[in-house]
């Protein structure tokens, strides 16, 4: 397992040539939700690989069960980067994804999530799904850290199998929290805006 993880990190680095920038935030072992824009299957792997090794051990990307459980290789990869697989099709009443995430996080793990839900082929980000809001509401102690992944859609766009090894950027920004009396819409809009701001700062 150790070996596969290391190979994965090396492969992610070679394929996506990422540089990581921590802006107004430092790497920390406190419990966090990293939320990022989603354009490529590589997103979860690259963002996870971009974290320092000691954070990688306690950070779990949330990924789609239907994609990552298909075939032996994907399953093996998913378990190597300790992915938390969520079934997108069958959301049960007693087993909502948010409850599952909170249970799996315990008091140790951080998560990587993509609140747009599915990969986005357009220029602008999609509206955020409400999961992030409920996570923030049920666990107000979590730091919600916005991440902007740049260029991933050119490295492995939707519908392609082979990646083109270009260069990419991972920009990690200052955490946000759910404000007192903030509505779901307001909060999700603000969260989305925090990623857009990271993108605009970069340009």
């Amino acid at each position, binding site marked *: 397992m150790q070996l596969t993880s290391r190979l994965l990190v090396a492969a992610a680095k070679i394929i996506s*040539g990422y*540089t990581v*920038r921590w802006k107004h935030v430092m790497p920390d072992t406190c419990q966090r939700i990293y939320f990022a824009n989603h354009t490529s299957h590589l997103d979860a792997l690259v963002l996870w690989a971009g974290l320092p090794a000691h954070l990688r051990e306690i950070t779990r990307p949330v990924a789609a069960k239907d994609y990552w459980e298909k075939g032996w290789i994907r399953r093996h990869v998913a378990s190597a980067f300790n992915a938390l697989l969520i079934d997108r099709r069958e959301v049960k009443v007693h087993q909502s994804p948010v409850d599952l995430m909170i249970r799996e996080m315990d008091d140790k793990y951080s998560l990587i999530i993509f609140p747009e839900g599915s990969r986005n*082929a357009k220029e602008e980000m999609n509206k955020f799904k409400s999961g992030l809001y409920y996570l923030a509401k049920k666990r107000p102690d979590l730091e919600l850290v916005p991440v902007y992944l740049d*260029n991933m859609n*050119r490295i492995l*766009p939707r519908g*392609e199998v*082979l*990646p*083109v*090894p*270009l*260069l990419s*950027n991972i920009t990690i920004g200052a955490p946000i929290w759910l404000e007192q009396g903030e509505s779901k819409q307001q909060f999700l809009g603000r969260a989305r805006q925090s990623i857009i701001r990271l993108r605009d700062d*970069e340009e």
Partner: protein
Amino acid sequence: MLFDTLHPLIGGFLEDSSKLILPFEKRTAWLIAAVMILLIIGSLVGKLLERSSEERLNSAIVRSFNQRIRSWWLMCAILIAGLVIGRTGTVVLFGMIGFWALREFITMTPTRRGDHRALFWVLVIFTPLQFFLVGLNDERQMFKVLLPIIAALFVPMRIALANDEKRFLERSAKILIGILICVYALSFAPALLYLQIVDSTGRLWNADSTLSANKGLLFFFVLITQLNDVMQFGWGKLIGRNLIADRINTSRTSEGVIAAAASSALLGALFCWVTPFLFWQAAIIAVVISLTGFAGGLTMSAIKRDRGVKDFGTLLQGHAGILDRIDSLCFAAPVFYLLTEFFFTS
């Protein structure tokens, strides 16, 4: 069959590594020693300037000077490492540099979704194949035709297959210019190692150690291009008056280019002992290197201006900006190679 094809690669590697103790002959070793001393002096000067920069000197220039020295140390280390490993090792190293440069080039060039497969071919297949052919050193010299003919026809075809006609010509041109400069032109530098060179009297140059001798020539070439870069900048700052193309580049002046060409001629003559050239031949070739190096810098400036950036390094923050360092090298390499091949091989 396979063995026959691979033999020149493996054979070259083994022969070279058997001489690991002193993998290059004396002249090359002397040249490397001279460069090391220059770099040490440069680093010390940089440290001194850094300390006194607050009061007197423009700290931006000092910083760029120190950055340059640092990247030269790296380049020098890479080059020496490559020379120690052998011919094949040098080709692999240049291959990685070319790959990285093309990566930077394509990353800063907007492409469309329909270019994906063409880009995959270019980065993952054509680029390694080009350097493989350089190392293969076959009689027909396939490396000279692979990219300008095969790839140049293949790329537009692959884009057409993707069924997206928007700005088709522009997209094909961008990708082709990228491989032409970053990969094809650059690959002529390690190809120097495979030339059977004769000196001006028609005798085989370094008949006893042809394998290692060309390393000195490659080192000479890289050294002159890099020194010429800094001299063009330095002379331009000191005596430059007339900008050559002010909309493209604000530091290249005609005075700087002429003075740098003259100084390069001097340096070329000074280092002629590592080359098969007589001192006046070395001087002329150094002038050619200087002018083609200038052409490379200017052309890449135009591309960067078109994209609205100052250098590739700032666009890809945190990335090394390899393309900024090798632009002159890319343009000078094919010309230097062809001149050497034309006049100094039998």
